[in-house]
C-alpha cells in the first residue's frame, strides 16, 4: 500500500480569481454609476467561489483506488476504480495518471461513472520488454462549478507492468548446475519424468512405455503412468551491467529497461520452479538480492529491478566480481545481462567467470535502438548500418572466448536463448 499523503488545502482555480475580480469591478462600477444593476450582477459572481469553498469537503476527501493491469505483449491496459467516501460523488473527481516515459498512449483515457465509483481505463503500448510501476493517480475533488479544488487522499495499491518475451515461461524447465550439498532435499513444483514419486495419471499417446505403472494398469483396466516431482537442481544468479556507455543516457536507459524485463521474466520462470534466484546490478557498486525463493523473493527482486538505473560512473569489473562472492556461492549459474557496448562491459564477463561463476551472457543489442543519421543518403546509411553490424558481431565473437553469448536483437523473442539454456553441453562452455 502506498503511504497516505498529508491532507492538502483548498485551492482556488483561475476561474474563481476571474469571478472574484469581476465581482469587485462590478461593485465599483455600481457605486460609480449609482446603479444597483451591476451590483446585483456581481452578487452571484462573488458568492459562488465562497460558497463552493464553504460547502465542499473541509478536508481532503478519501478515495479508495483499486486497479489491475491486463493485456499481453506490447499492449498494456490499466483499469482503476476510484471510490470516494460519501458524500463526495465520483462525478466530482478529476483523475489523471501520468504516462510513464517510453510508453505510448494508444487512445485517450476512458472515464466511466457508475453508482458510487469512477472507472478509468488506460490503453498503453510498451515498445520493449520492461518492468515498471504504474504512476500513482492524481485525484482531485472539484466543486460542480469548477471554481475550487482539493487534492484527494488516495488509498491505492501499487500497480506493476511486467512485460517480457513469452518464451521465458519455458526457461524454468532448464536444469541448473547443482550448487547444494543435498540437491534433492527441496522438491520442485514441476512434475516430470524423474525424481520423487508424485502420483498416477492416465497415459497419453506421447508417454514412453517405461513410465507405465503396470500393476496399477492391471488393477484399473486402463493404461496409467507414474509422475514424479522434480528435484530443485540449483540456483540462478542474474547480473545486470548498468554501467554507462558511449551510447548515451537515452540508449543506455532503454537497454537497461529491456534487460530489466528479461531479468524479471527469467527470475519468475525459475522461482515458479522453486529454484533459488538472486539478482545483482552493477553500476559503480554492486547491489544484490541474495539467493532465495518464494513470493517474497519475487517482490524483492522486482523492487531491486525497479530501483535500478544507469549508473553515473562505471565501476571496475574486478570490484563486481569480488563483491559477487560476498553474496553468492561459487558455481552458481550466472546469466549476465549486458549490452557489451564498452570495453569495461566486455571485461566483466571474464572477471566473473574467473571468480567461479559459470556464465552465460544475454546481450540486448543496441543496433535496433541506433537512430538513423539524417545527414546520410540511403546507400551510406545502409553502409553505416552494415559496419555497425559487423562491429557488433566482432564484439560478440570476441566474447565467446570467455563465455557463451546470445545476441538479442528481437526484444520480444527469446526462444533462441531458452533453447540454448536447455542444451547443457553448449551452456557448460561458460563453466
Amino acid at each position: 500500500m502506498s503511504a497516505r499523503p498529508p491532507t492538502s488545502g483548498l485551492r482556488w482555480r483561475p476561474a474563481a480569481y476571474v469571478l472574484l475580480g469581476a465581482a469587485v469591478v462590478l461593485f465599483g462600477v455600481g457605486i460609480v454609476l449609482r446603479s444597483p444593476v451591476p451590483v446585483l450582477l456581481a452578487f452571484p459572481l462573488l458568492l459562488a467561489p465562497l460558497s463552493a469553498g464553504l460547502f465542499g469537503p473541509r478536508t481532503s476527501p478519501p478515495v479508495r483506488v483499486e486497479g489491475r493491469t491486463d493485456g499481453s505483449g506490447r499492449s498494456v491496459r490499466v483499469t482503476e476504480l476510484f471510490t470516494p467516501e460519501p458524500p463526495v460523488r465520483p462525478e466530482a473527481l478529476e483523475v489523471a495518471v501520468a504516462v510513464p516515459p517510453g510508453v505510448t498512449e494508444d487512445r485517450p483515457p476512458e472515464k466511466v461513472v457508475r453508482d458510487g465509483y469512477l472507472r478509468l481505463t488506460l490503453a498503453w503500448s510498451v515498445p520493449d520488454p520492461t518492468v515498471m510501476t504504474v504512476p500513482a493517480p492524481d485525484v482531485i475533488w472539484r466543486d460542480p462549478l469548477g471554481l475550487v479544488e482539493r487534492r484527494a487522499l488516495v488509498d491505492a495499491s501499487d500497480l506493476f507492468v511486467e512485460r517480457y518475451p513469452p518464451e521465458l515461461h519455458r526457461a524454468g524447465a532448464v536444469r541448473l548446475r547443482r550448487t547444494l550439498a543435498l540437491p534433492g532435499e527441496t522438491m520442485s513444483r514441476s512434475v516430470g519424468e524423474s525424481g520423487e514419486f508424485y502420483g498416477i495419471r492416465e497415459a497419453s499417446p506421447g508417454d514412453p512405455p517405461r513410465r507405465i505403472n503396470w500393476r496399477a494398469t492391471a488393477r484399473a483396466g486402463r493404461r496409467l503412468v507414474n509422475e514424479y516431482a522434480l528435484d530443485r537442481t540449483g540456483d540462478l544468479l542474474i547480473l545486470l551491467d548498468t554501467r554507462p556507455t558511449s551510447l548515451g543516457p537515452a540508449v543506455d536507459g532503454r537497454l537497461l529497461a529491456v534487460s530489466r524485463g528479461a531479468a524479471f521474466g527469467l527470475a519468475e520462470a525459475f522461482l515458479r520452479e522453486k529454484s533459488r534466484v538472486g539478482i545483482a546490478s552493477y553500476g559503480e557498486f554492486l547491489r544484490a538480492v541474495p539467493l532465495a525463493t518464494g513470493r517474497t523473493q519475487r517482490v524483492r527482486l522486482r523492487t531491486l529491478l525497479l530501483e535500478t538505473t544507469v549508473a553515473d560512473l562505471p565501476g571496475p569489473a574486478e570490484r563486481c566480481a569480488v563483491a559477487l562472492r560476498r553474496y553468492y556461492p561459487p558455481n552458481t549459474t550466472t546469466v549476465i545481462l549486458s549490452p557489451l557496448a564498452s570495453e569495461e562491459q566486455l571485461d566483466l564477463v571474464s572477471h566473473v567467470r574467473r571468480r567461479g561463476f559459470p556464465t552465460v551472457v544475454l546481450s540486448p543489442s543496441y543496433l535496433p535502438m541506433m537512430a538513423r543519421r539524417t545527414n546520410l543518403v540511403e546507400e551510406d546509411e545502409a553502409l553505416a548500418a552494415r559496419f555497425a553490424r559487423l562491429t557488433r558481431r566482432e564484439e560478440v565473437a570476441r566474447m565467446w572466448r570467455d563465455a557463451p553469448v546470445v545476441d538479442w536483437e528481437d526484444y520480444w523473442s527469446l526462444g533462441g536463448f531458452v533453447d540454448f539454456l536447455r542444451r547443457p553441453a553448449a551452456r557448460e562452455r561458460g563453466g
Partner: protein
Amino acid sequence: MKVRPTAALLRRAFGPAYGLLVAASIGLSVFSAVPPIVGVPLAVGSATLASLLRGVVPRHYRFFGLLPPIVALGILASYCPLGTIPELAAGLAGLALLLWCSEDPDRDPGALGRGLAGVVVPATVLALAWVSSLLLPSGVGSLGIAAALLVACVVGVGLLLGAPRVFDRDPSATS
C-alpha cells in the same frame, strides 16, 4: 494529454448552459439602454466566443473564456436603467454565467444538473438581495449598502485568497 478541438469537444462546449447564457444575456440587453442592434449581437457573440474559447484552447487557459461574457454583461448592466426587473435580469445573467462555468467540456455529461447545486447559495442570496431592494428606498441608501458590500468583499476576498485554509477543517482523531 493534448486537447484538440474535436467535434465532440465543441459539442460539449456548446451545451444547454450556453443556451441559458445567451438567453440571459439577451434578456439583460433588452432592458439595457444599449441599442438592440448592438446589445443582442454583443450578448450572443460574447457567449459564443466564450464557448469557442473553452472548446479550443488548452485546459489550463480555459478560464479566459469567462472574460468575454463578463465584459459583455458588465457593459449591458452598466447601461441598464434603475428598476427591479433589470436588477433581476442582471442577477439571473450572473447565475447563468455560473451555470455556464459548470459545463466544462472535459466533464461528464450532466454537468449542468450538478452545477445547479453549486448555484443554490448564490441564487438564494441574490433572491434575498433582490427582495430587499424592493423594500429599500432607491438612491443613497442602496448605494451605501453597495459601498459597504464592496469594502467587505474586497477585504474578505483579500483575506480568503491569502489564507484558503480558512475552509479547511482538521481531520478528527478517529478519521
